């Protein structure tokens, strides 16, 4: 299944050249693509994150927010930002955590696991309340990161953090919204047994814009069902009976 075949399929379904041209159909498919990937988190990838001295929090949507609300590539390019050396600035600009064309995704969503490239360990997931309880002034503790924690939706923190100039990096595996499909041969990052969900999503959108509530609602129901199937597939890629269900480690898979 490619972008071209998806466009052809939607074009056949919508069958209304008076309203919609190829560009409209392409836009509707990509809109559905973004939503499906965000909803189901069916696309997983990895990014190398260059650590910034003294920075605890990294924002997946705006990675350098703590450094001034900029994306990391802008952050590295901004000469008014202080606290980082010219060398670090260059390194961040080169390998930084940037939702740009260098990566194969449009937006990072949720970190799944984090690897310290220098100490060669996986960071443990923890919570701020645990750190508050066990490590009083954890926020200012320096060192090589060995724990990470969620804050809000797209923000995560590390503990401890490098306080001085560093070349350390973290490898973050995370879910993401892939880049939009542009070329006819582009294939969606959706398993091919589920690609119909993109057609249904595009049809829901187009029929909604045509102000046809009955048809739009019919497509909407099919779309939601198909998307739920994909969501469940993502959560249950391994057959349940082969997953050791000790403790709560597999709660997500048993939902």
């Amino acid at each position, binding site marked *: 299944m490619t972008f071209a075949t998806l466009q052809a399929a939607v074009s056949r379904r919508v069958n209304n050249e008076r309203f919609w041209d190829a560009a409209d159909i392409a836009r509707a498919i990509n*809109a559905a693509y*973004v*939503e499906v990937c*965000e*909803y189901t*988190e069916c696309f997983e990838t990895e990014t190398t994150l260059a650590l910034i001295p003294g920075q605890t*929090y990294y924002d997946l*949507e705006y990675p350098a927010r*703590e450094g001034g*609300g900029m994306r990391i590539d802008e952050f590295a390019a901004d000469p008014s930002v202080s606290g980082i050396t010219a060398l670090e600035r260059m390194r961040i600009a080169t390998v930084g955590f940037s939702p740009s064309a260098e990566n194969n995704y*449009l*937006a990072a*969503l*949720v970190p799944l696991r984090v690897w310290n490239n220098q*100490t*060669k*360990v*996986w960071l*443990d*997931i*923890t*919570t*701020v309340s*645990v750190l*508050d309880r*066990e490590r*009083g*002034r*954890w*926020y*200012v503790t320096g060192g090589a990161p*060995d*724990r990470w*924690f*969620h*804050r*809000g*939706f*797209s*923000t995560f923190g590390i503990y401890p953090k490098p306080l001085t100039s560093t070349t350390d990096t973290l490898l973050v595996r995370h879910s993401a*919204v892939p880049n939009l499909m542009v070329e006819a041969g582009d294939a969606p990052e959706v398993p091919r047994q589920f690609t119909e969900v993109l057609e249904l999503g595009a049809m*829901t959108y187009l029929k*909604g*814009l045509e*102000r046809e*509530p*009955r048809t*739009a*609602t019919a497509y*909407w129901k099919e779309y*939601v069902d198909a998307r739920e199937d994909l969501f469940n597939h993502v959560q249950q890629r391994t057959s349940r009976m082969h997953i050791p269900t000790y*403790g*709560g*480690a597999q*709660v*997500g898979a048993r939902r």
Partner: protein
Amino acid sequence: MTPNELAALILGELGDSDESIWTTAEMLDLIQESIYDFKVRTLCDWQRAALNDVAGQATYEIPDALNFHQMDRAEYDSWVVDARPTRVQMATNGYFETSGNRPFSLVMQGDGLRTVRKIGVPVANSALFIIEYFSMGAATSESPDDDIEDLPLRYLAYVARRVKSEAYKRDGDGQSLKMAKFWNDWYEDSILMMERRRERMYRRRVSNIGSSGKVPADLKRRDPGTLPPYFPAIN
């Protein structure tokens, strides 16, 4: 994307680019209230900001510019500051409104919705008090030509569904309650998506049993060694 650009886009999607039914001003109002609705219900925007101490001052109005919605956590000099109900303070320290030194807890009760009372009362000016909070976003209707920077672009697509629903709901020309329901259902579905993701994130935190969560580094990267002989060699 600016609010004005988003308004034009939505008017186009409503088939009313010439504003014969809905106006740009109406769209801007709906965009504003929809962004607030989205952010408040999903708590998708987490922020961190200083709430500087002033010597002898116990209560602090959180500045409008922070777009504060809900307190998440606070710290003083990197130590956590506990948020407590007033009754606990009254029971444990009757002089909590006046006794001072360095803030070790806070209450947000009885002094106004957006007022933080620091306990103990700071005795010196400092910039050591930090609040972490969920933001409701900037007031976009006041600056319709500025980019909406604090909400990722794809979320604006979800916000636009609510705008369309509200537009269709309005009495008068263009009203269609069925279309209003359709777009509203889709918007609510977006909210549900965010809630489900947050729930999964919170569940994932429960990942260690019987320990403080720390696995020694040398255990995590231990050498598995050679397979014992009861595993047959596979060539």
